[in-house]
């Protein structure tokens, strides 16, 4: 009985598994290898061989039109890298990316996950937040290039800001107008257009302006005309001082339209404002009963208010933060979903115990939830760091050509150097640099996998 039991137990099936006749050890390993062979082949051909070849390429001369023209160059390429302004910018930018993007995304993910945890339509909200992940980096880049457009008429962000700001400080009616060159008119620091002449009662101030598009002149404008000025009044006329061919500056000519609705201020002998008036459809107005001169007249600055002209999101200092913003928009959903799953998997009894013990929500969060979530947060953070180190297409697409230099990142620099500038050796050296930078993170990741498994 015992003998049979021993016999049986050595070949006994393990608990819970379905037994199949297994071949002996060596053949089993051979079969495993045979099944793995295609995958190993692909890995070798598309990952291992190119990696080693890149290493070889990085110590070759960068010259030649074709990638296989090689001549040994030692560590010249690596030396060239240290001196290279573009690579230094790229490394600096990558550092900014690594320092900000993963933290922001993890933080945003955590906040969203907590807020939507116990809300009724949490799945719907998570879907909406996750949707940007469904599109490629390239599509994201295109979308945000348009969103960030500096022209308020085209860019969504600037348009939205403009509609808010314009309510508070509305733009003037002729923001682009300037006094014509070689006349007595000039623009003051305060933004008004003033004449260098002086006016006595009975005079008319000629305040002609140019650089006004024909289509910008208000509908009710008619041919400009000087007003009939009685002896005790000062008149003024503000008009579009341009006719085909230019015309004579400072003279009201046939074919030149007046500018209605413009505010003109009359300045007294001491420079203070003694009168304000608005122009008629023919551009004229009159300050009646003015008293003793001499006077001056100015087109007040409110007419020239440019209003909000748009934040230049793509200027050197803002372009990297702008692209990081686009990247976070895309990946926050990933963090929300993963952290949400982590939250859902938290043991409820621990939280209940904490609450029963009298901890506030905030204390529960800080001392119970966060530590329990730490592994999940770690996963999200490390994934984002790896993603951000090799960031490429979103920078290529979102940044316009004139700031690509300032938004440069290592992967983009490698692409430019190797494939556009055709300097394969230097490009390979940059690839090796990127590889070296990623190694510590991969090491961390692998250690974490080992620990959890």
């Amino acid at each position, binding site marked *: 009985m015992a003998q049979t039991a021993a016999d049986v137990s050595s070949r006994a099936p393990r608990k819970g598994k379905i037994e199949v006749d297994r071949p002996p050890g060596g053949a089993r390993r051979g079969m495993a290898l045979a099944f793995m062979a295609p995958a190993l082949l*692909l890995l070798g051909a598309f990952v291992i061989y190119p990696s080693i070849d890149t290493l070889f390429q990085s110590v070759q001369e960068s010259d030649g039109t074709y990638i296989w023209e090689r001549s040994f160059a030692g560590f010249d390429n690596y030396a060239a890298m240290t001196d290279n302004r573009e690579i230094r910018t790229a490394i600096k930018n990558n550092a900014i990316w690594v320092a900000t993007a993963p933290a922001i995304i993890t933080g945003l993910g955590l906040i969203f996950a907590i807020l939507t945890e116990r809300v009724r339509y949490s799945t719907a909200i998570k879907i909406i937040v996750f949707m940007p992940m469904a599109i490629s980096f390239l599509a994201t880049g295109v979308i945000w290039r348009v969103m960030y457009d500096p022209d308020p008429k085209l860019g969504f962000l600037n348009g939205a800001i403009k509609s808010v700001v314009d309510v508070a400080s509305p733009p003037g009616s002729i923001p*682009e107008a300037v006094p014509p060159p070689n006349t007595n008119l000039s623009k003051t620091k305060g933004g008004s257009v003033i004449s260098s002449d002086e006016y006595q009662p009975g005079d008319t101030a000629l305040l002609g302006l*140019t*650089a006004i*598009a024909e289509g910008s002149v208000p509908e009710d404008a008619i041919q400009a005309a000087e007003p009939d000025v009685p002896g005790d009044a000062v008149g003024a006329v503000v008009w579009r001082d341009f006719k085909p061919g230019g015309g004579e500056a400072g003279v009201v000519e046939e074919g030149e339209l007046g500018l209605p609705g413009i505010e003109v201020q009359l300045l007294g002998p001491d420079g203070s404002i003694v009168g304000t008036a608005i122009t008629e459809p023919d551009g004229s107005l009159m300050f009646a009963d003015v008293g003793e001169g001499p006077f001056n007249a100015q087109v007040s600055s409110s007419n020239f208010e440019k209003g909000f002209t748009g934040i230049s999101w793509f200027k050197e200092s803002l372009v990297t933060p702008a692209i990081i913003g686009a990247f976070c928009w895309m990946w926050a959903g990933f963090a929300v979903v993963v952290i949400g799953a982590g939250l859902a998997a938290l043991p409820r009894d621990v939280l209940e115990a904490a609450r029963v013990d009298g901890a506030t929500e905030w204390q529960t969060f800080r001392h119970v939830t966060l530590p329990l979530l730490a592994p999940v947060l770690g996963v999200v953070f490390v994934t984002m760091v790896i993603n951000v180190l090799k960031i490429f297409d979103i920078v290529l697409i979102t940044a316009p050509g*004139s700031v690509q*230099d300032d938004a440069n990142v290592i992967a983009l620099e490698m692409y430019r150097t190797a494939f*556009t500038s055709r*300097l394969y050796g230097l490009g390979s050296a940059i690839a090796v640099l990127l590889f070296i930078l990623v190694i510590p993170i991969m090491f961390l990741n692998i250690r974490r996998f080992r620990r959890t498994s």
Partner: protein
Amino acid sequence: MLKLRLRFGILVMVVALIAAACGGDDPLAEDGGDEEPQGSGEIDVAAIWTGPEQANFEAVLDAFTDATGVETNYVSTGDDVGAYLGTQIEGGNPPDVALLPQPGLLRDLAGNGSLTAANDDVAGALEENFAPIWTELGSHESTLYGVYFKVANKSTWWYNTAVLDSAGVEPPATWDEMLETAGTVNSSGVPWVSMGGADGWTLTDWFENIYIQTAGVEGYDQLTTHEIPWTDESVITALETFGQLVSDEANLAGGVKGALQTDFVTSVTKVFSDSPEAATVYEGDFVGGVISAETGATLGEDADVFNFPQINDAPPSIIGGGDVAVALSDDESAQQLLEFLASPEAAEVWASAGGFTSANQNLDTSVYPDDITARSAEAVASAEVFRFDLSDLQPAAFGGTVGKGLFLRFQDFLKNPGDPEAIAEALEKDAAKAFN
């Protein structure tokens, strides 16, 4: 039982994967066959064109087949013609004829012996139909290799006729006239010119058109090969001339900021939209294609062209580009194609379809679909001075990469046109590195 089924499934998947990997089309190897014997009657032709351009070129190839009976097989190379041909040549399987979009490639390929010299029939056809400069341009070290089939005129300045009319001005003929006209148009409320400075290559075209006139042809050739440095006086003069236009922000649509953040296509649509933001835009004859595709303006009516203004009484000079047909194999049929491409019949097929200009002097310009293309083509065919785009002839790291070299430095110049010396020095530093 479950495990068996799983194993079987995996086995099937693996077999399928291997089958897919071994069989099926490998797009890189698609070049239609092995080496053909002399005068084979069938040739492979490679060019960069896709879409409508490909359709038009294939019509030209069909005309060739009709005329000679030689069959053709068109292959598109993708954007990087140099890389594609390089792979094919290394593999021992180059196409019989290739159309190269950069003259630098002709130099490189001829230099490493990948091209077959053109025969006497081809040379004769060129002499009969083209100005002598085209034989020169198609040669490398005095041996003729190629026929310039398609050319581009990059000295065309496009303008919105309505804006110029309401400003009451005529298109300017000289640079000084242009500056004055610009002032008048600015006063009419529309900035003079729209620049696509975000795309650095547009700025290099500006510089080249100015430089060839201020420095002359000899200076242009010397700068192209870096015989003279970028810190040479002639470069400073050209930059100063350019500065006369760009230092007055009123001339530029959106000012300097607008110029630097506008890409090429937007710079064209700005001029020809319903409420134009600029009166003119300068770039090559391909602007016409953009106008037709992206705006509602009609070529010849709403949009018209004037030649790049003359500077300092320089002779009429055209900067341009071109696609040159070269033979990469010994096949006699390849030479027949080159000869055909030099004929007015070949040019007419594509010219009448639009989007194409030929330097062929025997082509009747009335076949062009619009007056503007006809005038632009005539300018090229009769040009006294024709030179290729200088930036196309530079090493790619200096002359062809976004954010580096020429592209970057001219953008820097726009930001600060008052210091041409600094820009020239930066240019020379970049050039020295690239030419090493």
